[in-house]
């Protein structure tokens, strides 16, 4: 009797050892390689020192990997039942941050819990994917496009997005909305509603503009024309492009990037780390990292398609889409294709919270892969 039959039959539960053998080590290796590139770049940012960034990042990665395995091995039904409570909790935290949040860089983003800082928006990224997946899991294809079922889904997406925008954190709000809409599309929203949605969204842009804060508007102006203020707000983008361009095909060599090492380049351990890679290791290095990212996305797609339950499929694609958006926004930003928004390069940029969140999400992806044969009947799961 094959593995899939055991799971499909709904007979006995999988043993932990069996689950362990189902882990896809190719994906794990891929994640490690990408993180390794991150360590190398952080080592270079510090001018050839492990301190202060690379060593910290390694510790966080190690913790994150443990999280990944634990998340992956827990039964998928547990995650399914946790989806709504997790979402409710994340929503409460988001509201809480309005009142007790500390202000970092002019924006309220985290709750100080003493030894560590909790960013509710990070929790929400995962909770929203789980919640939408569970919600759509319980709907038939016809129901998805019916207004009465559509409204809860839209609320699930836009309430937290609005709260995050309030903080104000434009980057995360965009990620939440785009990720949520992608799941709506995957669940089978019909074309008419989609078209209508696009029309409404486009016509709302002029209204939305008024809600942006001055610094957010400045970023968009600067994006449209960086040379408007070459020593002010446009400085980052100009320096980033110079760094990338001067790197050429093969780069200036590890630890040799003059732009980065002489401090022309800003925030190179976080948002602009891709630029540093491009400068020191050239197009070859940068393209190599992008290809690794594509492979990760390939896994997401593959895991989604092979899964036999709608919940798992949606979770896998939800993780994939969010990941892809991270990569796209960050890379496009440093090349001057989109305005500067604070979105890190996944697995590479320095930062503990984003790292843990991502590895948690990959844990869910792996979980879907391990439990791909589990039948989760739609009818047995109530919507609420």
């Amino acid at each position, binding site marked *: 009797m094959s593995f899939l039959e055991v799971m499909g039959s709904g007979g006995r539960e999988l043993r932990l050892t069996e689950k362990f053998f189902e882990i896809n080590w190719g994906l794990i290796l891929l994640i490690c390689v990408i993180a390794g590139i991150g360590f190398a770049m952080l080592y270079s940012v510090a001018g050839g020192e492990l301190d202060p960034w690379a060593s910290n990042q390694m510790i966080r990665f190690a913790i994150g990997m443990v999280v990944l395995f634990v998340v992956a091995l827990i039964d998928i039904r547990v995650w399914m039942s946790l989806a709504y409570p997790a979402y409710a909790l994340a929503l409460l935290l988001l509201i809480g941050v309005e009142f007790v949040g500390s202000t970092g860089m002019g924006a309220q983003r985290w709750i100080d819990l003493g030894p560590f800082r909790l960013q509710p928006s990070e929790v929400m990224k995962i909770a929203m994917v789980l919640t939408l997946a569970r919600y759509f899991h319980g709907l038939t294809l016809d129901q998805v496009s019916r207004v009465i079922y559509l409204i809860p889904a839209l609320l699930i997406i836009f309430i937290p997005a609005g709260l995050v925008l309030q903080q104000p954190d434009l980057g995360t709000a965009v990620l939440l909305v785009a990720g949520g809409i992608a799941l709506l599309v995957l669940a089978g929203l019909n074309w008419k509603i989609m078209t209508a949605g696009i029309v409404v969204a486009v016509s709302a842009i002029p209204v939305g503009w008024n809600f942006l804060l001055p610094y957010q508007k400045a970023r968009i102006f600067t994006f449209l024309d960086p040379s408007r203020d070459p020593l002010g707000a446009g*400085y980052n983008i100009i320096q980033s492009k110079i760094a990338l361009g001067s790197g050429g095909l093969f780069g200036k060599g590890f630890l040799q990037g003059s732009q980065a090492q002489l401090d022309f380049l800003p925030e190179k351990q976080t948002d602009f780390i891709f630029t540093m890679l491009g400068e020191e290791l050239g197009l070859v290095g940068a393209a190599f990292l992008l290809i690794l990212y594509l492979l990760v996305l390939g896994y997401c797609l593959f895991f989604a398609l092979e899964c036999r339950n709608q919940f798992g499929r949606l979770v896998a694609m939800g993780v994939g889409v969010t990941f892809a958006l991270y990569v796209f926004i960050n890379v496009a930003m440093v090349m001057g294709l989109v305005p500067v928004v604070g979105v890190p390069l996944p697995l590479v940029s320095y930062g503990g919270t984003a790292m843990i969140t991502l590895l948690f999400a990959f844990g869910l992806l792996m979980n879907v892969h391990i439990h791909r044969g589990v039948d989760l009947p739609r009818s047995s799961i109530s919507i609420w």
Partner: protein
Amino acid sequence: MDIKDNDRYKMFNRRAAMMSVGGLGVMGTLFGRLYYIQVLEEETYKGLADKNSVRLEKLAPVRGRIYDRFGTELASNQSNFRLVLVPGQTQDIEQALDNLGEVIEVSDGRRERVLKAAKRSRRFSAVTVMENLEWEDFAKVNIRTPDLGGITPEAGVTRDYPFDSDLSHIVGYVAAPNESEIDEDEILSLPGMRIGKDGVERFIEAELRGQSGNRQVEVNAYGRVIRELKREDSTPGKDVILTLDMELQSYAMKRMEGESGAAVVMDIHTGDLLALASVPGFDPNDFNLGLSQDTWDGLRNNKYKPLLNKAIKGQYPPGSTVKTIMALAALEAGVMSPWESVYCGGVTRLGNHDFHCWKDHGPVNMRTAIKESCDVYFYELAQRLGIDRIQSICNRFGLGQVFDFGLPGEKSGVVPSRGWKIANIGEPWQQGETLIAAIGQGFMLANPLQLAVMTARLANGGKAVEPRLIRAVGSEAMDIVAPPSMGFDQSQLQVILDGMNAVSNRAGGTAYGSRIWEKGMELAGKTGTSQVRRITAAERAAGIIKNEDLPWERRDHALFVAFAPVDNPRYAISVFVEHGGGGSKAAAPIARDIMHKTLIKDPSKRRAIGPVAQTMKAPSPATEEG
């Protein structure tokens, strides 16, 4: 899997495939853009990179200053000539230090520290080589800069405390930030930045620090600055005005010199702290400049504990100073009338225990009991009052609480109660403990600030005034809240105040020797002598050893609390002398002198300065390149 499910799976697959194609297209765009920038435009950008000479540098803010109520500078910024080095711009740091050693003296320890710091720091952030150079040395280095291979002279500012040890416990001190502090706020990594470690410097660190500015500079191929292109000055930290009267503070410190103890003077209506002395002090400038091991050991091992702010962190048995509020509680509860007489035969027996008084007073009423500090009277009063009411009156007068008024590390002391004893000692309350609680002994502990607050609340007609140290931060004046009434009967309160008046102004009062003669300046007070050792029956039989004959550590603590002028109270004072002997002998004379000085100066009547508007731009510590 039913048919409907099959539908949605097909739909999912189709849409997922479409999305993937779209995703590939987007990624293709990224690759194309990358190719365009890195290959097609490579030459253009290479040229720009070679010419690239504009760099952003952060500018350190100047720390806000601290003033007393009349504008005397208590913490200021002095120019600081220092040498810095950027590891990434120095070929050979050891060689550079050797060269520097030929110009001025560089100690081995200093050398080692610089090498270590250079190894740790980021390649292109500056490391401080030396600070607080004499002008001549600085000038010498300035001339020789070209030979020093990367060591650059800079004129910055450093913290200075002109009143050194007189204010060590209030203003506190600053020191170089440590690594975890730098992680919290990157400004702190700039050379010359300091962080408040104690006192006001620490309590309002966030306001004093200021915000960094930045400048765009043109640099040469080695990263050395050639000229400045654009500058956004840093925002200096906010200036802080305290309620202190520095002259009075210095006087109090001087008056208590040689003792270990504390003195607190406060305005009974506003709560303004006019003096908050704790002796001995230490020189906070030492901490800023870097403390030698010897100095540090000396401070730590001194039995008079110069590092401890005894006024707020010292916890001592308040002794008889709390008899005032005990009497008030008894009047309020109606368990004792002011005229009722209790006979003091020198001892009260409860169960198997004898509770002693310090002499045989004979018959005493409430006023005489306060005036002559009769213990037996208060043992009787305590039994009628009970521990619960004792706890309540203590809390209402500010004992057992912290005021969070502007200094870190306040200690709450102890107001014992049934619950407290169960929680902390694990035993039920004993009646004998009620007796000694009423005379401020036993478990009860208070700090000198709390005793000053207690006295102020008695003297201002029973209003819950809170101590205040910060008058203004930047352009913002801290509000004075009118203290709420605690609802005491004024005629009952007057009985207590009369008793305190008798303490210092009637013959036989425990502080009669420390009265103020001048008309209109008389003070009213209460002495306190708290035992730090238990007197055994055998010792009592053999005759009690005088305090002077005991080693310092075993002598009684001396306390005195007072308010003045008697007719129209304005100021409250508490004085504590650690192991000073007796309250009337050691503490009252000090309190009298400080109060006399306060009344002559009358700081509450004189015009204090208002909040400082931040219009003046303090100069940013400019980097003066070679």
